[in-house]
């Protein structure tokens, strides 16, 4: 589904990613862990197409197409979804308006007809149950005045409605209490399928108690310094990142 090869990325004059290679197959869940400043969020943003990053070398192929050449909206329409660490508040645009616009933009891209109002509201309501959200949230401005937990649930709701093929969750667990974490994780688990892949970017192992990854990668100093299965996350929980960072330092 996604093949990243030797990806080098700069922000202004600083090289943040120094050769990332990663293969994500259909239906797989990959966790990317690492200390602050390791480049985790940069990787998530580059894959979603945010401005301000310069890819100096390497490539990312998504379903055999050059992902990095697509504008962000095309990536979204092709099934890439980024759940933001800090979802943006948009006063004046209601949640339901955003969802309708997004759903129909994606349907249009896939040569499908627009959903009529009844079908659309039915779809959204069924997905709201997944994240335990009240219907009134639909008519509020996007994320405006939402608590941290509500914002993250709203991201998962958007993901559920848009049904991506590759979902990238950037620190979705940050700032969540245990109940919110459970709701969010249940939502993600409900969306796992053999055709849908996930990249979970996280600092803490905690999220992985709820969403069991197939693979865990440790990012440090802009490189993946270790890959393994879910047990690697537990090891990190015990030993911290220090031993791997030293390892990365020695390698470079």
């Amino acid at each position, binding site marked *: 589904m996604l093949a990243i090869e030797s990806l080098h990325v700069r922000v202004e004059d600083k090289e943040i990613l120094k050769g990332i290679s990663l293969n994500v197959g259909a239906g797989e869940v990959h966790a990317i862990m690492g200390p602050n400043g390791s480049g985790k969020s940069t990787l998530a943003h580059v894959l979603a197409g945010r*401005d301000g990053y310069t890819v100096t070398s390497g490539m990312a192929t998504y379903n055999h197409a050059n992902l990095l050449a697509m504008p962000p909206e095309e990536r*979204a*329409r092709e099934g890439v979804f980024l759940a*933001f660490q800090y979802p*943006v508040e948009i006063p004046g645009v209601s949640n339901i308006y955003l969802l*309708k616009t*997004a759903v129909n*933009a994606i349907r249009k891209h896939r040569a499908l007809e627009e959903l009529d109002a009844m079908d659309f509201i039915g779809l959204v309501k069924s997905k709201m149950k997944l994240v335990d959200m009240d219907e009134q949230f639909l008519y509020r401005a996007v994320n405006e005045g939402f608590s941290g937990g509500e914002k993250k649930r709203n991201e998962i709701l958007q993901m559920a409605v*848009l049904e991506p093929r590759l979902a990238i969750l950037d620190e979705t667990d940050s700032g969540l209490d245990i109940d919110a974490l459970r709701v969010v994780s249940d939502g993600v688990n409900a969306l796992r399928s053999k055709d849908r892949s996930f990249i979970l970017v996280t600092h803490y192992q905690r999220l992985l108690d709820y969403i069991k990854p197939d693979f865990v990668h440790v990012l440090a100093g802009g490189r993946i310094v270790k890959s393994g299965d879910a047990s690697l996350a537990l090891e990190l929980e015990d030993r911290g990142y220090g031993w791997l960072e030293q390892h990365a330092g020695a390698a470079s």
Partner: protein
Amino acid sequence: MSTELKQHYTAQYSAIKASLPGMGLSWLNTAREKALANFSESGFPSPREEEWRYTNIAPIERRRFSSVSSPFEAVDRSRLKQFSIDGAASLVFVNGRSNRELSVLPEPARGIIACSMAEALELHADRVREYFAGVLNKESNGFLAFNTALFTDGAFVYVPQDMKVASPVHLIFVSTGADGLSTTRNLVIAGPGSQAEIIESYIGSEESGYLSAAVSELVLAEQADIRWSKLQCESNRGFHFGGLYADVGRYGRLNHANFSFGGLLARNEVHVDLSEASECSLDGLFLCTGRQHVDHHTRICHREAHGFSRESYKGILDQRARGVFQGRIIVARDAQKTDAEMSNRNLLLSSDAEIDSKPQLEIYADDVKCAHGVTVGQLDEQSVFYLRSRGVDRESARNMLTFAFANEMVEKVKRPGLRSVIQAELLAALPQTGVRKEWL
């Protein structure tokens, strides 16, 4: 200002004098002639005056506008229909004169008066005389003198004590002729404890350049409550000068909303004098594009203690447009415990657009709460990216965010019929890709 220009308007006055409303009334004749003399003296305001620093009205001075008798066949009925509001009585004025055929007069109930100024000067001359130019007296500028000398009609609304009027009175001013002059004067009197809603709309023919000079005086007695909305939707070649001068009595309340979408050169003034424990809210939204120039000038004067005011103006400027916001709050020495806030937020969509924003607080009391804030910015790129990451193309994302910025002000409008008229005008004025009315 050139002598020739002053002569033009003096000649205008002589030409239409016989047909001006209230011409039999000597007090009004005197007021008009005094105003004409003042205008001949001072002319239109010049950029040398502090209050007019950012707005050069030379384009108005270059033209010679003349009063045109109202060929109301020229009125675009479908355009007029777009301004119809359910349940509202409407008084329609064409080129500055009331038009009965196009108007929907209010039910003649329980002593409320809503009629043309011409009619009021025949039937209620004493009442008009009692209030006419009363609020205005303290103000002087060329446009006001011009208006007093030359007004050809306008609306007169009188709401008796304790009357709560459920349906709004909608004043619609239509300008049609090229180089035409629409000079109107409105007077609204709200008796003690009364409640009413006034809407004024300004529209004009697309092709013609004309001058619409409209002055309203509003007097709120004790505990009166007035909601007033203005829709400035003049044609893209129209010139507009509009002023509302309000005096709010003790415990009175004025909610004013100013929507300014049209006109090539437009100036909107709102002046409010507040008495003890009275309050006002002034909301405004202006959009300008192309080479439009829109100027908002507001003044709130807290004369007495315990007053409360909130002001919030938002502007969106695109292409080579220029906007001006001058907001002044004055807190007099005796106006202790005043609570006043003013904000002006502007969105610049092009690097050639310009906004001059000048908030002014003049505080002479020592126990008050006053705040002001101005922002000038562009669309938030993080928000644009957020929308794009959900599949929305860049242009649609920008348009959605622009509309959202404006719509925040429209959503404050309480009356659904009015809100949908404003929303339709807003949609028509902004780029539409990605913004769909049926999804709002």
